[in-house]
């Protein structure tokens, strides 16, 4: 009974079911897993689990820190804790790539339920890790198991939304992926409030906060799993007439998930996403320091925190705005806007520092981060246009490896180039200039990759009559 509740066959919508219930179902999942962007609020408290007010001294990285000998190991260091988030994002990409087809064929409810189990389970195991002061339990809990929850949860509603909104697929997926950006807005103040509630003079309340978050997120995600439905076969929104022939860059055909890997279109869009994310993610991690160093004495630490918050808002808003706009502009044109406008703005950022204009600096970055978010949210619809709806969620999962790659390259480029400049005597206020020009060049390369995207060759299309029946091996290519 419980298993049948999760079956795809039991999630088919009854007549009269409103498709506008699907975006909130997707948001239930994405708002929860978006917590990942707010994990840094735990970093400082987790360096004081033993010392309480200040980090307890201990040896550097060694085996004793991975096993439960708190008195011998001392408190954890920020560099050790940084791996928790990195592992989570890495396993997001891995799980999305490996389990995309399983998600696609099992339906959204089973995927959302699994994501809820992994995500909450990751928090519970991490709570035990904090309680025992055992770091590897947190790496496995939040990093690996939670990372699988991130990946499965991220792709779980994508194809369902596209099927419910064939008339506006960009807007539909934009709403869900906006939730991933917005999850941090809820998680950050909620986590701070919970830690304050559970912390005493002799105890830092991180473990209890993890348990509370695990319970809250599991319940929230299960609401999404309960609401979500897939449309009946052949369903279309009132007044919508599906095109009978493929448009130039919008296909009516389907491409099998692993056949997509054989197409140049997949790899071109992989680079489009990777380069767009690389340019944004590196700066995102350094936004606070950059704003203070480019405007010394004018942007304080408090104001810089406000700047980061503002950029996160534009990151979130851009996910909805640009994905919705792509329904009218077309996906390829939308990415042309990202790359052309992004190149121009990155090239102009050093001028805002030279001119001492904080307002222009904030304005330019607001637009840049809206396009960074827009890159994430527009790509599912781009994939749907290229490869059809049948395996779009699984193909999207494979494409998210570009995000994992960008998550490594982006921060490395920004951090190391800044350090190189400072070491070689460049003033901190100008230390980011070359980095900005490098980002602009990356976006030019992204523009060129996007320009090469053409319709997928017919030999890669699944045979229509058999694809509907079995959907797996019947490809013509």
């Amino acid at each position, binding site marked *: 009974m419980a298993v049948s509740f999760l079956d795809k066959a039991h999630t088919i919508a009854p007549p009269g079911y409103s498709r506008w219930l699907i975006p909130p179902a997707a*948001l239930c999942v994405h708002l929860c897993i978006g917590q990942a962007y707010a994990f840094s609020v735990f970093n400082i408290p987790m360096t004081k689990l033993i010392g309480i007010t200040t980090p307890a001294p201990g040896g550097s990285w060694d085996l004793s820190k991975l096993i439960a000998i708190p008195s011998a190991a001392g408190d954890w260091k920020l560099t050790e804790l940084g791996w928790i988030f990195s592992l989570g994002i890495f396993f997001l990409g891995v799980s999305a790539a490996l389990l995309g087809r399983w998600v696609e064929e099992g339906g959204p409810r089973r995927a959302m339920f699994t994501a809820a189990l992994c995500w909450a389970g990751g928090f519970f195991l991490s709570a035990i890790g904090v309680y025992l002061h055992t770091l590897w339990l947190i790496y496995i809990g939040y990093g690996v198991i939670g990372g699988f929850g991130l990946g499965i949860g991220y792709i779980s509603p994508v194809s369902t939304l596209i099927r419910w909104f064939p008339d506006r697929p960009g807007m539909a997926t934009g709403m869900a992926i906006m939730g991933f950006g917005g999850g941090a*807005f*809820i998680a*950050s103040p909620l986590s701070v409030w919970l830690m304050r509630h559970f912390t005493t003079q002799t105890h830092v309340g991180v473990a209890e906060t993890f348990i509370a978050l695990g319970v809250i997120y599991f319940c929230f995600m299960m609401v999404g799993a309960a609401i979500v439905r897939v449309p009946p076969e052949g369903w279309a929104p009132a007044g919508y007439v599906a095109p009978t022939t493929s448009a130039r860059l919008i296909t009516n055909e389907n491409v099998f998930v692993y056949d997509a890997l054989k197409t140049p279109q997949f790899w071109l869009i992989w680079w489009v996403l990777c380069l767009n994310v690389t340019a944004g993610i590196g700066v995102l991690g350094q936004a606070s320091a950059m704003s203070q160093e480019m405007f010394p004495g004018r942007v304080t630490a*408090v104001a810089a925190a*406000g700047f980061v918050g503002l950029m996160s808002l534009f990151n979130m808003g851009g996910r909805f705005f640009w994905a919705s706009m792509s329904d009218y502009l077309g996906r390829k044109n939308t990415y042309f806007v990202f790359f052309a406008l992004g190149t121009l703005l990155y090239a102009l950022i050093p001028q805002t520092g030279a001119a001492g204009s904080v307002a222009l600096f904030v304005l330019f970055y607001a637009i840049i981060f809206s396009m960074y978010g827009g890159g994430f949210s527009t790509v599912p619809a781009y994939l749907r246009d290229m490869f059809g709806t049948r395996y779009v969620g699984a193909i999207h999962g494979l494409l998210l490896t570009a995000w994992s790659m960008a998550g490594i390259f982006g921060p490395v480029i920004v951090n190391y180039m800044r350090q190189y400049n400072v070491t070689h005597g460049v003033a901190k206020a100008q230390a980011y200039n070359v980095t900005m020009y490098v980002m602009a060049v990356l976006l030019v390369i992204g523009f060129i990759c996007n320009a090469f995207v053409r319709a997928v060759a017919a030999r890669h299309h699944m045979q229509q009559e058999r694809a509907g029946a079995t959907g797996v091996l019947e490809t013509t290519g």
Partner: protein
Amino acid sequence: MAGNSVKLVLAWGFVGIPLAWGVIETCINAAKLFH
């Protein structure tokens, strides 16, 4: 039809209220940039 409307309000409220709360908190913090 009325049942659908109630479900829609509940579902959107369920995700919209926490999101709005988070956005307001972030806006309050972001306002410090302009002080």
